[in-house]
């Protein structure tokens, strides 16, 4: 059953050096606070998975904690590049970053396979592109009924998936709503699941568009109001688009970035970053 924990406790217990970690969220509900706690605890040699690595992954990469990234679109949405990601890929700073690169459709299906207990998924994808040739997690299968050849992608099964949600109850049942992306699949594909929530309520009321994860598939819940900032939590906050724009000049420069991490994550226990 789910343990209700503080964020530092939950991160320390669930996430270890060398783990493969998915912190999902499609613009909405990105678990920034948990990512900052990973940086504070210096958990390193991580393989990170995410369809849309966003500013939080830029921060983890720039902090030197990431050895490999499995992804499909690595940009600052609506702004431009993720400069720490680019610096790691282009210049190996602060360490080289290995990539396993897919399309969104491929990544989504990799999670689906992981959540389904299957070793692979089939999709109509990658044909005619150079992507398949660069990843050993893309292959083909032949339909046994029609003979058609289709793309196959290897399942993703993270050691830990971290997501942010609106609410949990005291038994650790979790509900999120709005754009819920691929979070259910990422959670069900993982060995361990950490959910940060805006609030803990006595009883979850079913919501339109609500996605519920029963407590028995959630390893730990931590209450972290505003834990998705500068991403947002529908019903609780709006996206801090200004922060995403401000991140561009901060992240372009190694020194500015390092100073920002020091001031806003390491020294402040994340207060300024919320």
């Amino acid at each position, binding site marked *: 059953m789910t343990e209700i924990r503080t964020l530092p406790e939950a991160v320390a217990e669930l996430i270890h050096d060398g783990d493969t970690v998915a912190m999902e969220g499609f613009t909405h509900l990105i678990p920034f606070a948990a990512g900052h706690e990973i940086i504070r605890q210096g958990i390193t040699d991580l393989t990170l998975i995410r369809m849309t690595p966003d500013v939080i992954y830029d921060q983890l990469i720039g902090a030197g904690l990431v050895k490999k990234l499995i992804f499909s679109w690595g940009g600052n949405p609506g702004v431009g590049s993720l400069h720490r990601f680019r610096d790691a890929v282009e210049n190996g700073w602060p360490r080289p970053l290995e990539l396993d690169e897919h*399309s969104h459709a491929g990544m989504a299906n990799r999670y689906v396979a992981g959540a389904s207990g299957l070793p692979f998924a089939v999709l109509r994808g990658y044909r005619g592109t150079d992507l398949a040739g660069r990843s050993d997690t893309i292959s083909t299968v032949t339909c046994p009924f029609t003979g058609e050849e289709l793309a196959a992608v290897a399942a993703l099964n993270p050691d830990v998936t971290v997501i942010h949600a609106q609410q949990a109850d005291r038994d650790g049942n979790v509900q999120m709503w709005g754009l819920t992306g691929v979070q259910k699949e990422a959670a069900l594909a993982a060995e361990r699941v950490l959910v940060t929530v805006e609030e803990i309520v006595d009883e979850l009321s079913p919501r339109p568009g609500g996605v519920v994860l029963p407590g028995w598939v959630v390893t730990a819940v931590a209450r972290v109001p505003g834990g998705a900032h500068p991403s947002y939590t529908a019903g609780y906050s709006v996206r801090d688009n200004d922060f995403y724009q401000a991140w561009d000049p901060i992240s372009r420069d190694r020194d500015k970035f390092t100073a920002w991490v020091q001031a806003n994550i390491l020294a402040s226990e994340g207060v300024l970053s919320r």
Partner: protein
Amino acid sequence: MSDCTPDELMTVNAARALAGARTCFVGIGLPSTAANLARHTIRPDLVLIYESGALGAKPTRLPLSIGDGELAETADAVVSVPEMFNYWLQTGRIDVGFLGAAQLDRFANINTTFVDRGPDRPPSRLPGAGGAPEIAANCGEVLIVLRHSTRNFVDKLHFITSIGHGSGRGDRERLGLRGRGPVAVITDLGILRPDPETSEFVLTDVHPGVTVDRARAATGWPLRTAGHVGTTEPPSDHELAALRALTAA
């Protein structure tokens, strides 16, 4: 026509290209602006589909990101990302896919992965594929909107992220792709469309005040032209007002 910028010319013409569409899979940025403009002008019933999970989004202001809250709040239905790609996109049931690009070649193949910068420097890393490879493969047809320059319109892609017409006519069929592929590339100088014989993109229209030579000079391959190069209709006051209201909001 009021005075307008090259970007406005591009966006207005991109919106017009949606005149016959019922459903549009929208990438963020210029495609999203154009698709939203179409909803406010030529196609009020256009169903906008964002890969974040919003089917039938009706944003009042332009979303900065593909996952802005208003997309979900105004949608006819919100679905999971796997469902979006598998049940909605992969089946070919979406009429038009609307894409941007970093590099484009003469067959409208797209690169958004990396750009070589010569032997002394590492390749410049771009964001990557996102939803584009399967949008390009599976939508009924594809529109591309892109500022015209030799940096973007290149002779040879450094990486094929999303397929247009491959190496020419018949390639999509050989690859078993469902959709017709790119039918227009709309730029700030004019419009390119595939030659029916070869699928090579040729200049079919220039915007008012733009010369064919200027478009040629901005293209990294020897740009061919259609037998007759037209001039696009200037933006109407209504189109410009709607566009400016959208981008100001």
